[in-house]
Each structure stands twice: as structure tokens, then as C-alpha cells.
């Protein structure tokens, strides 16, 4: 079981404000940690710092106690996988070859992909509910389908920790559930996941813990029921939220323009 931990992480983009300000975070084993927060709160920066793509100005990231920056890139890719929101350009390859890129750090340059690599690609695609597309060109997939293939590629890395950036933005509700169920399944199989998302309600259903960021700082963390509360969310997101409970007792949160609704009511009764 691999433990990824960040301690006292601060990061500032050139000429910008502090994007991260003293964030501590630990991730291991069966954790499904969901990072929430308003736009610009530092969610994606945190993910990129944990992935080793950004070097923190202060604090450090460690993988099982070893400084992440000192770990060879290949070994890092075998331990930590990152799922981007989208790619800069779509490669002109089949879905199968695209997912094979997840095996980069495991494939010998001279002997090429082996049976175990092809097997890993097939299993990963199946886990992402995308097995049928293996021979399709990437260009023929819809945005939501591409999202699932990106997740499959990270699964093919067979890393112990997955860092996932807004995985459900382009997905319909059915596939939002499927993707989060898959992520929760990783946890049950001993692989930790950190998910950045705006979707508080999926977080409520699938997260083992929620980290709420605001202005680059952790303002709350804990089980969904402890974080998704009016006194915690309203100072961060404002007052236009409606809180309720799902049939299983988990909280849900909806954006709700209550003041506007009240005015409309007033106009109707006048």
C-alpha cells in the first residue's frame, strides 16, 4: 500500500497570488479523497503538485516517505497516475494504442508491448466500460467517451495512486455514476484516488473524505456528512445553496437562487 503525502504545500504562479497556501494532505490504500472548492481555489494546482508536475515553493510531496522530486520519472509513473481533464491535441491513434501509452513506463523500448501489456489494456478498457472501442480511432469518440478512455489509460498504468482532474464534466448522469463507482471500486481494491470535482453530490455519495479548498487553503475536511453542511459551505460558495438528504441519508446540495425565487413569488401575489 503506497502512501502519497503533501506537507505544508505552497505554490505561486509567476506574478500571481498564492495558489496554494500551506496545504497538508495524505492519501493511501482505500481512500477516495474528493477535492472541492470554488473556481480558482487551487484544486488543479494541488493535483499537479501532488503529481510532481509543479514543484511546490514550500513544503514537499513524499511517496512512502521518499521525496517525490527524487524519484525516477518511470518509477513515479508506475506508482502515481494522473488523469487530465482533456488533452491538448487528440492523438491520431486507435483507442487501444492510446491506452497502451499508459504502459509507457512498463514497456521495454526494444522488445515492445508484451502479452501482459495487451492484457492490461483490455482489462482497463473493460473497467472503464469502453472495451468495444479498442479498434476505433480516438477522433471518432465523443467527449464523454474520451473521458472514459483517459481513465482507462490511467488504469493501464497500474499505479497505486490515481489523481483525477474533473472526470465527469463531459459525462451524462448515468456515466457520471459509472465513473465514480469505478473510482470507488479502485479504493476497494487497495488503490487510492484523489478526485478534483465541482460535483458535491457525487462527492457525497462516493468520497471517503472531502477536502474543501478556498483561496489555496484547506477550510474543511472530513466525511461527506461533516463537510456538506450549510455552516461550512455557505462561507465558501455563498448563500444560494439548498441542502437536503438522499433516501440513504447522505446529504445533497443544489445551487438555488432562493432570493430570486422569493421576488418572483412576491410579483405573482401582487
Amino acid at each position, binding site marked *: 500500500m503506497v502512501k502519497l503525502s503533501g506537507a505544508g504545500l505552497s505554490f505561486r504562479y509567476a506574478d500571481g497570488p498564492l495558489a496554494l497556501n500551506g496545504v497538508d494532505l495524505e492519501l493511501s490504500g482505500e481512500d477516495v479523497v474528493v477535492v472541492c472548492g470554488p473556481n480558482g481555489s487551487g484544486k488543479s494546482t494541488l493535483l*499537479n503538485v501532488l*503529481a*510532481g*508536475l509543479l514543484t511546490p515553493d514550500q513544503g514537499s510531496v513524499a511517496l512512502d516517505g521518499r521525496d517525490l522530486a527524487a524519484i525516477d*520519472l*518511470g518509477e*513515479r*509513473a*508506475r506508482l*502515481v*497516475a*494522473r488523469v*487530465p481533464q482533456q*488533452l*491538448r*491535441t*487528440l*492523438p*491520431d*491513434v*486507435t483507442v487501444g494504442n492510446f491506452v497502451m*501509452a*499508459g504502459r*509507457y*513506463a512498463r514497456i521495454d*523500448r*526494444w522488445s515492445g508491448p508484451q502479452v501482459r501489456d495487451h492484457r492490461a489494456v483490455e482489462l482497463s478498457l473493460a473497467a472503464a466500460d469502453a472495451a468495444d472501442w479498442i479498434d476505433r*480511432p480516438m*477522433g*471518432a469518440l465523443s467527449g464523454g467517451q474520451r473521458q472514459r478512455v483517459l481513465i482507462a489509460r490511467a488504469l493501464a*498504468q497500474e499505479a497505486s495512486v490515481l489523481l483525477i482532474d474533473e472526470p465527469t464534466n463531459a459525462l451524462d448522469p448515468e456515466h457520471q455514476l459509472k465513473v465514480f463507482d469505478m473510482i470507488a471500486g479502485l479504493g476497494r481494491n487497495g488503490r487510492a484516488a484523489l478526485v478534483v470535482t465541482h460535483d458535491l453530490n457525487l462527492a457525497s455519495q462516493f468520497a471517503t473524505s472531502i477536502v474543501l479548498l478556498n483561496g489555496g487553503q484547506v477550510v474543511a475536511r472530513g466525511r461527506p456528512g461533516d463537510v456538506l453542511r450549510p455552516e461550512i459551505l455557505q462561507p465558501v460558495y455563498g448563500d444560494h445553496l439548498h441542502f437536503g438528504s438522499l433516501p440513504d441519508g447522505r446529504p445533497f446540495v443544489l445551487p438555488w437562487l432562493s432570493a430570486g425565487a422569493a421576488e418572483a413569488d412576491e410579483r405573482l401575489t401582487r
Partner: protein
Amino acid sequence: MTGAVRSPKALSLALMVGLPLLFVLSLRVGASGQLDLGSALQGCLATLGSGEPLAGVQQTILELRLWRTLTTAGVGAALALSGALVQGLFRNGLAAPSVLGVTGGASLGATVAILILGGAGPALVGVADTGMATVIVPLFGFVGAVLAVALIAALAAPGGRMSVPTLLLTGIAVNTCIAGLLSLISSLMLSDWEVSRAILSWTFGTLDDRTAYHALTVWSGLALAAVAVPFVSWELDLLQGGEDDAASLGVNIRRVRVLCIAAAALSAAAAVAVAGQIAFVGLVVPHLVRLLAGRGHRALLPLSMAGGMVFLLTLELANHWLLGGSALQPGVAMSLVGGPFFVGLLLLNRREIDSW
């Protein structure tokens, strides 16, 4: 966005058939008459030191054609490989070896060599013999190219970190400085007809009167650069999704950058050093290969090399066949053919290219 993934197999096959054919044709056909296949082969063997040489002037003609053909093929391959590497690294289909300063640096080096050999130079450095020009101009061209690339790389990456836009902009800046220096030299030497002519003709490129030295230079540069190919092919594919994405898959971005720039600079420098400026090969050939065989670099890089050979050999053959003794210099022919060709390519493949 493409609906189909292209296969490189058909193109590989066509190039494997086309290349030997063009090679033999280039040996047989020329301004000084035709040779039959048997004589061409006999002459080649004699050049390698086995068997009887051809009678009289025939052997000399064949050897000239052999070195010209080998140099032409090497130059085409080196420029195309360089272009494919630079385009892959910069994720930009409009990048060419010249952005790295290779062409400008080589021109400046060659011009300085011509100055030394021409004007007051020969007396100064003790090389009055014009045969030395064969060695000294390419050598200076090569050194100039390498220095220009090193300067651009050093300016663009002071702390070892190099961003691609910075590199491109630095390349433009340094190329502008080099162009200024070249204009200065040319304008100062306007009254010296011999030197002006030499400088000007170098900018047109030439593949005639090439020697074993030229062929060896370009093929050595090409061979050294090609060593990098297996270490960057898959990596360049993964880079197309962005550097962060490739890094998170385990790609050592810095190593890929250094290898690509070194290989691209080396092969283009070797080509420009022996043949002068031949534009468009490095730009057009990788485009053609991508259109025919797809964008995967494991196929694109070797096929660009073979495609570059076929492209430049065909152009030279057509040039000599159609125009005979008044054949155009390759740089001129390439610009005349390559320019409109490239415009046509852009228009025909608008949708495709929009997605690059």
C-alpha cells in the same frame, strides 16, 4: 479530426521500390549522356575498389553521378528527418529546421569561409588552392550551424529549463541577427564579383560536383542523428497530448528535447553544409508522410528519411531531365516547386491541417 487511422505499410512499400529505382536512374541519366545498367553497376564496383573501371571519361562521369546521387539522397533524408523532429517537438506542422538557426548559422559560416578563401583570405591563411574550398566551406557551414543552435539553446534555456515558445521566439531573434550580418557582408562585398557570386550561389544550394567528402559528411551527420530516432519516436507521440501529460506517463521531457534538438541540428547542419540552402524539404516531406501514413512518429521519422531521399532525387532527376544542361540549382527548383506545392497541400487538406 480524422475518422480513419492511416497505415504506413503502403507508403513503406512504395518507398522501398521507388528508392532503388531512382538511385539507378540517377546514375544512368545525366547531362553528359546515358549509361546502361551494366556499366553503371560496373563503375560503382570499380569506385569501391573491385573490378575494372569504365573506359576513359565514363568512369569519371559515373563517379561524379554516384557522389551527386549519394549526396542528394543524404541531403533529402537529413533535411526531412530534421523537419519531422522539429515539427514533432514543437507540436507545430509549420516548424522547420531553420527555426533552430541551422540554416542561418550554416550560411554565416559558409559565407565567412568564402570570405577567407576569396578576398584577402587565401593569402592570409595560406590556402590559395581552390580545392580546399570543397572542405572548408562545408566545414565552416557545419560549425556555424552548430554554434547558432548552441547560442539559441543557451539563450532560450538559461537555467536548463526550456519552454518551446521561448525557443521559437529566440530562434526568430537570432535568425534576424544572422540575416543582418549576412546582408552586411554581402553589401560590403558587392564590389568583389567573385566573392559575391560565391556567396549568392551558396544560398541557391548545389548538388553538382559533389565529392566523396560531401557524401560522407552528410551521411555521417544523418547516421548520428538517426541514432536518436528510437529514443524519441514514442515519446514524441506522447508529447502531442501536452508536456504535462507525457511527463505524468513517465516521459523524460528534458531528455527528449535535448535529443530531438541535437539530432535535428546535426542532420540539418550536415545537409546545409554540403548542399547550401535547400528550403521546403524539411517542411514538405514530413507533411506528405503524415498525410499518407499517419502521425505516429515510429513510422513518421524513418519514412520521412526515405521520403526525403525519394523527394529530392525525383526533383533533381526531373530538373536534369527536363532542363538538361541549364538545370536549375536545387534551392531554386525546390522553392519554385515547393512553394506552390505547399500551398496546394494546405488547400487540399484544410480540414486535416486545422486539427494539427
